[in-house]
């Protein structure tokens, strides 16, 4: 191929002129590559000095050759770098240094310390509040049912009507009990019912009747879900009671029914009168009635009776910040609880009275008859 192409290529050029230029180019190339012999080199250098036009030609040539070698070097460097780049594990590197794709994550990265501080403050504030209000001291059993939780929430927002005996100026004999409530007899042979929260965490429990006689008792059954506890008087000094004058009402009471209670908000029995104000308790709690009746700490565990002397419930609390909203566990749940007590485990049979000897009596006489069956529960 060369001959033909060369011909068309060079045809227009002055061959003679070209001849010397070709020679020169080759000479310069040889010079730049250091291929000249020593004598040639000296001649070349001399001519450069003598002939500025010659020198310019060399500089021009050199300039172009430099550009070419720069170009070549850059290509070479780039290809070498590409080889290195291929050998890198870019994916792993990327994972190491990559920004998180989501703006949320970037924000999280930026503000996570602030978030952590805010969260800790919130956590401390919440747990501090809960701790100081005694939330954690109320033990929550593991088998929490919805019902039980509702009751727990009641307990939280209610003043449990336990009387702090030590806070009271004590009259008469020194009473070393720490907390107290009320309880009433379930049967004549020494079974007494009260609220679970009255005896919760008790080391020992005593019951004291209206004459001031105290008897040791033990817890034989507790039902935290209904806030109920059944005690048995174990004291040898205890003599069986007369037949109970009241019975337990098996059906629900109507709203508006007049009711009364007897309790120990102080060291003497106190009578209180009111009416059933709602068929459900706090926050729709179906286990309790809402009762409009004056009750105070210490009334917990007291019986709620209707006009005919039926026990319709047991006082267990009142709503804070609300006037006249006390709560009483319905008698049907007391009966349920008693039924749930395994009879075999009892020393003596627990037989509930079915006869009611209070109906038709005046309230004064009812109170007198009830008096011996209502106890102050003292907890140590």
């Amino acid at each position, binding site marked *: *191929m*060369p001959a033909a192409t*060369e011909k068309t*290529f*060079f045809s227009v050029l002055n061959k003679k002129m*070209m001849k010397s*230029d*070709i020679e020169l*180019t*080759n000479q310069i*190339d040889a010079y730049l*590559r250091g291929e000249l012999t020593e004598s040639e080199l000296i001649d070349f250098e001399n001519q450069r000095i003598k002939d500025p036009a010659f020198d310019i030609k060399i500089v*021009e*040539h050199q300039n*172009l*050759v430099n*550009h*070419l*070698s*720069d*170009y*070549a*070097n*850059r*290509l070479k*460097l*780039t290809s*070498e*770098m*590409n080889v*290195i*780049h291929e*050998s*890198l*594990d*870019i994916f792993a*590197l*990327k994972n*190491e*240094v*990559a*920004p998180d794709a989501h703006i949320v994550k970037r924000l999280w990265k930026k503000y996570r310390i602030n978030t952590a501080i805010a969260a800790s403050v919130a956590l401390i504030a919440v747990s501090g509040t809960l701790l100081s209000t005694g939330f954690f001291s109320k033990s929550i059993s593991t088998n929490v049912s919805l019902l039980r939780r509702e009751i727990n929430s009641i307990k939280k927002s209610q003043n449990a009507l336990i009387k702090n005996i030590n806070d009271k100026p004590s009259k008469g004999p020194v009473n070393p009990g720490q907390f107290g409530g009320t309880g009433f007899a379930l049967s004549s042979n020494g079974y007494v019912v009260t609220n679970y929260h009255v005896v919760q965490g008790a080391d020992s429990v005593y019951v004291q009747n209206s004459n001031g006689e105290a008897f040791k008792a033990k817890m034989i059954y507790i039902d935290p879900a209904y806030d109920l506890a059944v005690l048995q008087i174990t004291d040898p000094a205890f003599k069986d009671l007369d037949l109970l004058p009241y019975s337990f009402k098996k059906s629900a009471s109507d709203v508006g029914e007049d009711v009364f209670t007897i309790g120990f908000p102080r060291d003497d029995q106190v009578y209180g009168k009111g009416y059933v104000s709602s068929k459900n308790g706090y926050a729709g709690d179906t286990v309790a009635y809402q009762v409009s009746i004056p009750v105070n700490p210490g009334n917990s565990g007291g019986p709620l009776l209707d006009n005919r002397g039926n026990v319709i419930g047991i006082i267990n609390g009142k709503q804070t910040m609300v006037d006249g909203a006390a709560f009483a566990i319905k008698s049907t749940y007391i009966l349920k609880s008693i039924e749930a007590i395994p009879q075999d485990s009892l020393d003596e049979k627990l037989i509930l009275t079915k006869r009611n000897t209070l109906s038709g009596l005046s309230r004064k006489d009812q109170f007198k008859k009830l008096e011996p069956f209502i106890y102050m529960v003292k907890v140590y």
Partner: protein
Amino acid sequence: MKKEVKSSVPADSEIILGILNDSKEILNRLYVTYFPVILQFVLNNNGNEDDAKDVFQESVIVLYNKVKSGNFELNSKLKTFIYSVCRRLWLKRLNAQSRTIRNIEDYSEFIPVEDDLERHEEKDRQFEVMELALSQLGEPCKTIIEDYYMQNKSMQEICEKFGYTNSDNAKTQKYKCLQRLKKLFFQS
């Protein structure tokens, strides 16, 4: 990629010497050592790994040119120099694409490198001109020029490769090609 290479940061003077000697190993270590931070910078500032590769390779070219031109003074850490060049290149590129970012996330200290980049831009322009000129040169001129001036092959080798009967023909051809290239290169 060997772990030990990754963890051992070569001394700056070692790299400079390696660049002057065209050491492939030094280029490799330079790449492995400093590419990650550039990747991190570009990825965290609206770029992808290909952008990082381009920018980083350009910065290495800047470094090589600077070192080889003989006026390289190490007045900062090499890492700082590379990072600064890349940072500048990348921000310029973002700007050119009108993709500005408000908060630049930085991963190293940096120094002003405007002078170096100006020089680089000039070189870059020349590179592109040369690329264009060579592409317009046509065959067999392009290959002859590349073989002789870029790969430093002897005229003898070129004669054999192209089947010229004597080296005078080859020399004439080379002369003509160079003239053409000169014209193309300096014209544009």
